[in-house]
């Protein structure tokens, strides 16, 4: 059975025509996972085949809905009842989640089959997946290179045909950057679109759950199923969910597109610039209106991000004290020594670095100079986008300044690693949605990603333009 680049519609049709059963399909993916050399998975769902058997019983009786029997991989920062949830950390190495996240619960109701939990940077902190407590993930295009991060396992799993679709989380680019590095589609929804209940928090004002898929429309299907109000997340938005898959079918070229003036002077790998210019030229030729917009404060967005994020990290990760769950010491220690000994063994180096940074930023004397100022920069970034979206509907940017870098290339210099988030953090700081899709490869055959950004709650526009560009690229390569 050839499961290469399987998408939701192919799977759905296959079930309808009885070309394969859910058990056969699940087994095909599980056997790919077994042979996998990318280290994309931390754990496998032992019940996957049993779940597939239940799906086959339903398939025998009725026509399947779109997501019934869809095998899926879930990032290990998202909890699934009964499955291990390590978040890529030794701190939670043996933690079994007692409940499921809302996003997963909704997908399960739609009938998905969970294959397993994917590798990621510890507590989603990293841009290369090298900060995982369970070893780095390798890029399926080149095993000497990183898959990006933090959702590196989810992106690599989809790219390497270990799963047709996957879930990731995006705090500063953690879905879009690995999607770009691995050559798949990734979507960060508007903040509040998908419930964060059951997502092991990194930075609560920035985190969002989103899909990683082979096609733009697959991301639309998954977002459709996950989105919507949830009373268990106080930041969940109480608003209706549009028909995202339908937006992918829109033929109109009625949206105004924009490219960013300031990004012309940024250090970007020339092949990425060329690939994007080619797409923009084709869009113009096809009749889309493209203009130049200005985002003057974007350079400060990354600085603000590396203040706000660690501040929230140091607060969120204070709960890992080894008392109620997670790693534990068997020695008798005083409370302070207990905390320190558990946290020093359980957390990896980057996690400690960010906790240290956050603690420093929030400490007396620095709070006003850094944290408060960063929250003001957030206002400026929001204003930048608000002005840009008054002129255009969708902004096109590179997803990353370079294609996938080498394993070990940036590990000794954290700041250089942080700079790979330059184009993605703005969306998290402002809370707007973003989509990355593959638009070609560089001379080393490494995927190049294009990022689309839209205003709050305008994911439909991302899907409409994304689907159009996907067709341009597919026409070019086939």
């Amino acid at each position, binding site marked *: 059975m050839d499961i290469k680049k399987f998408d939701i519609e192919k799977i759905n049709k296959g079930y309808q025509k009885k070309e394969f059963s859910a058990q056969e399909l699940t087994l095909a993916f599980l056997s790919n996972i077994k042979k996998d050399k990318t280290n994309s998975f931390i754990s496998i769902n032992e019940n996957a085949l049993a779940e597939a058997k239940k799906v086959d019983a339903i398939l025998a009786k009725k026509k399947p809905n779109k997501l019934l029997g869809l095998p899926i991989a879930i990032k290990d920062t998202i909890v699934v*009842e*009964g499955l291990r949830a390590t978040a890529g950390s030794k701190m939670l190495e043996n933690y*079994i989640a*007692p*409940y499921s996240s809302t996003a997963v619960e909704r997908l399960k109701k739609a009938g998905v089959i969970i294959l397993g939990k994917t590798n990621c940077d510890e507590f989603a902190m990293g841009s290369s997946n090298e900060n995982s407590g369970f070893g780095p993930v390798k890029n399926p295009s080149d095993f000497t290179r990183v898959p990006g991060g933090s959702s590196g396992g989810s992106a690599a799993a989809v790219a390497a045909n270990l799963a047709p679709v996957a879930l990731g989380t995006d705090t500063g680019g953690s879905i879009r950057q690995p999607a770009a590095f691995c050559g798949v589609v990734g979507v960060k929804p508007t*903040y509040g679109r998908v419930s964060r209940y059951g997502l092991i928090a990194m930075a609560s*004002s*920035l985190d969002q759950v989103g899909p990683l898929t082979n096609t733009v429309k697959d991301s639309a299907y998954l977002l459709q199923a996950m989105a919507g109000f949830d*009373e268990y*997340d106080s*930041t*969940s*938005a*109480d608003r209706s969910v549009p028909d995202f898959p339908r937006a992918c079918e829109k033929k109109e070229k009625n949206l105004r597109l924009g490219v960013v003036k300031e990004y012309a002077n940024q250090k970007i790998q020339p092949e990425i610039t060329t690939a994007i210019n080619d797409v923009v030229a084709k869009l113009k030729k096809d009749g889309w209106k493209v203009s130049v917009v200005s985002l003057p*404060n974007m*350079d*400060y967005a990354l*600085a*603000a991000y*590396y*203040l706000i994020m660690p501040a929230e990290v*140091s607060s969120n990760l*204070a709960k890992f004290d080894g*008392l*109620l*769950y997670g790693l534990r*010491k068997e020695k*008798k*220690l*005083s409370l*302070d020594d*207990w905390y320190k*000994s558990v*946290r*020093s063994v359980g*957390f990896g*180096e980057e996690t*400690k*670095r960010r*906790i*240290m*940074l956050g*603690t*420093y930023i929030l*400490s007396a004397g620095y709070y006003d100079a*850094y944290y408060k*100022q960063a*929250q*003001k*920069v*957030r*206002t*400026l970034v*929001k204003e930048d986008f608000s002005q840009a979206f008054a002129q255009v509907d969708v902004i096109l940017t590179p997803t990353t300044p370079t294609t996938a870098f080498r394993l070990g290339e940036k590990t000794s*210099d*954290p*700041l250089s690693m942080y700079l790979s988030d330059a184009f993605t953090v703005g969306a998290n700081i402002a*809370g*707007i949605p973003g989509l990355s899709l593959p638009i070609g490869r560089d001379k080393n055959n490494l995927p190049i990603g294009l990022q689309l950004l839209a205003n*709050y709650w305008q994911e439909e526009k991302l899907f409409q333009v994304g689907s159009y560009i996907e067709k341009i690229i597919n026409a070019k390569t086939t």
Partner: protein
Amino acid sequence: MALDKKTIQKIADLAKLNLSAKEFLSFPKQLGKIMAYVDKINKLKLENVAESLTGVSTEKSVWREDKVKIFKGQHLNQGKKSGDLLVVPKVFDK
């Protein structure tokens, strides 16, 4: 602009972390470099700018009734239980 060792020790204590010898050597310079980078926001004139705690700020707060629901999860696998309570380790004497 490396942070001094005394500051690093103070932050580690506040963050409840023991640093390894290697971390104690690398963190002052690494954190200093990151702080020097993020300090660029102080070049901006921000006196009259309001703070934003989140990106999406127009949404209303979500409230629900403060009612106890009994959790029926089967996988509270860690630690000993005593009735409905989790037994935590004794940490108040050495």
